[in-house]
């Protein structure tokens, strides 16, 4: 049975639950395990890049919306120094978001070479 990020089972996301004010935002957010499952499905369908995306997404699924938006902003051209990006990478790494951390580090290196840093 698929669960929401909150742990609520998919079949318990009902109008009845909504009426009882039992549903919160985490009850309609995807669980990282579900994203891992979808990653395996995508791999089986010949798209390892989509699978990698779902795995990066699984790492991000526990981050607050504001932080996700802030990291996106930091990655836009000319927004960050290499140190800024590496700091975000470290912070992500510490929370187990290793693939995203690697993406940030890779960006820092390429941005440096291509003049995309602040």
């Amino acid at each position, binding site marked *: 049975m*698929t*669960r*929401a*990020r909150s742990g609520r089972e*998919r079949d318990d*996301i*009902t*109008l009845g639950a*909504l*009426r009882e004010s039992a*549903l*919160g*935002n985490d*009850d*309609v*957010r*995807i*669980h990282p395990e*579900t*994203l891992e*499952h*979808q990653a395996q*499905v*995508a791999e089986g*369908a*010949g*798209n*390892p*890049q*989509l*699978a*990698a*995306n*779902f795995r*990066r*997404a*699984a*790492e*991000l*699924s526990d*981050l607050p*919306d504001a932080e*996700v*938006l802030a*990291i*996106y*902003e930091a*990655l*836009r*051209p000319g927004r960050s120094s290499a140190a800024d990006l590496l700091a975000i990478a470290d912070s992500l790494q510490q929370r187990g978001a290793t693939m*995203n951390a690697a*993406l*940030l580090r*890779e*960006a820092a290196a*390429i*941005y440096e070479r*291509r003049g*995309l840093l602040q």
Partner: protein
Amino acid sequence: MTVGRFRFMDQQRVNLDGFAVEDASLGLLAFNSPADPEPDLLIVEGRVTRMDGRDESDFDSIDAFIAAHGLDLGVAREAMAIDNTALARMIVDPGVPRSELVRLVAGMTPAKLARVLAALRPAELVIAMTKARARRTPSNQAHVTNRSDDPLLLAADAATAAAFGFREVETTVPVLGDAASNAVAVSIGAAVGSPGVLVQCSVEEALELEMGMRGLVSYAETVSLYGTEQIFIDGDDTPWSKAFLTSAYASRGIKMRVTSGGGAEALMGGAEGCSMFYLEARCVSLARAIGAQGVQNGGIDSASVAGSVPGGVRSMMAENLMVMLRNLEACTGNDALMSESEVRRTSRTHPIFIAGTDFICSGFGSIQRYDNMFGPSQWNAEDIDDYLVMQRDWGIDGGLKTADANEVERLRRRAAEAVRDVYRHLGLAEFSDEWVEQAIDAAGSKDVPAADLMVPLTAARLIRDTEITMLDVARALDECGYEQEAERVLAMLRARVEGDYLQTAAIFTEDMQVLSLITDANDYAGPGTGYQPTPARQHEIDTVRQQRSVEDLRAEQARSRSNRLRVVGPATQGHDPRDVVIGVSAATGRELWVTLSGLPVNDVIEELMAGLEEEGCTGRIVRINDTIDLGRIGLEAARLAGSGIAIGLQAKGTALIHRRDLTPLANLELYSVAPTVTRELYRQLGINAGRHAKGSTPEPARNPYSDEAIEARYHTKVISLVTIERACAQVDGEPETLELTAMESDS
């Protein structure tokens, strides 16, 4: 001054379009610029060290991302070594499965795939597309917007779009501050129209993500990629920021695709001398590399740029194919209007339409052109009936279905009222009854003068400030008595938890089943395979609301039933040299009462009689009952006439003058185009018949000329009319004399 022929040609609409001289330096060419690199790929110890003419140290950020993430290095050597023509043939060959193409293309560099696909001819592109698209079942996407961001009209139009079969609805704003209101209104309207309609609101990337996170939209598409680094940066992103954005959407369980399109770089002055197709090949490779499940491409906002160069329309279609071969969802352009010419825009869409794609239009303007805040689409509300008829003509599924007028009215009312009630319930806005009624009936925002432009702005601000989510909207719908819609909105949130619609090319059926590469994989392998509409779906495609049967025509005729024409006895031979017979067909006055021009047959007979009378002749009405052929009707009537002259008249209005010594198919004068014959012309035919009776040679009456598609308009009616005539005529049917009374009788 040029000759008249060219002055006339210059005025045709196609000449409003711009056509560019090919110029590689400006990126104004479709395929194969001298600056496009030769495809190559060097892999050293599992790392790409050279790709498409550049060493690793010279990779720009796009090259670098593709090289690091986008290629299947396990298959790359094999794929890059295959001859381009051999690959092109494999793509078209129904014997080579899609999965094999996908496997090989995963190892091809952008330049390689561009070279291979540039070799395909248009008909080959159609076959390739039929085979290569991800999802078996084709679908379509609608734009739903209006000039005033009117929430009631947006909801009514979203419900209408759903009723016509669109499975994705894209809105946007003329005023950025209205975005959240538009997203909510369109989501409510879509939920009224059908379960499972995906909704997006196209705005700036960060705002779009924020709305997605709040559940206000169910997918995203405005995530633009470009083929040169400079233009990518001008778009305020990098491959890494876009990769992160892609994961951000997935992390909230939201479907997304990216957007690109040939000609964008040339339009923005940064094509670096490369062809549109090569640059698009880079975009599509990057889309795969960042892990997007799909791409909207095929010119898109620069469709008219791609369309301005030789082969540009072909290159837009080939772009879509590139997406399919990269195993991604293809949302195949046909959105921004690329020509003023109806012929050209149809030509641009048609091969894609018959091949079928995941979304044939990445924005069919389901609203009128003037209300489309993306700019007019290639296809618009003006064209929905054309599109439905084209589906029927070719027997193919273009994703749309005929909607019943009464059902659409019901849905529009429910959608507008649901938004009114929910906005009131959430404290967002109040709407007047007048506004509601105008929105329900409106064909566009010009029909809603009651709309208040401040309402969406205030509502959107409140939605953002009070952090209203789609759960709040679902609850408000439920509390306002829209339980079904509340359930549908909740079902879209539940779908986020399930995650199945994150997979490639996912849409929902009306039963909330996901159709995607995973659940509904395209299995085309030649004739007799692949997608075939179910009998029920085929019936939907075939049944347009304008179709008419013989019974429909019979009922239409019966509404003009008259008994003024009555039988007085068997027909007799006339002897008076002024006696002219009006021979009418067997169904006249029995089953048929109105001609194709809409004149009552009785009125036609009166005009003929009056014309004869003007010439001092007497008209006598005889119904010829043994033939439906007008020549024979006229000839038989002429043989009964004392003058030897007769007028033959079919109930549908076709008329001629005949003489007893001629052969059946010869005649003196003929009105063959019944729909255009007027009362005055029938009078003239009566006059001329009288003159023939007196032995003179009048100037023949002529059919009025028309450049309209008269046959297209009337031939189906003619078949029904002829069927009815044939049923009335008997081989041994005797002619009978009729009289036309002045009044209807009670009997």
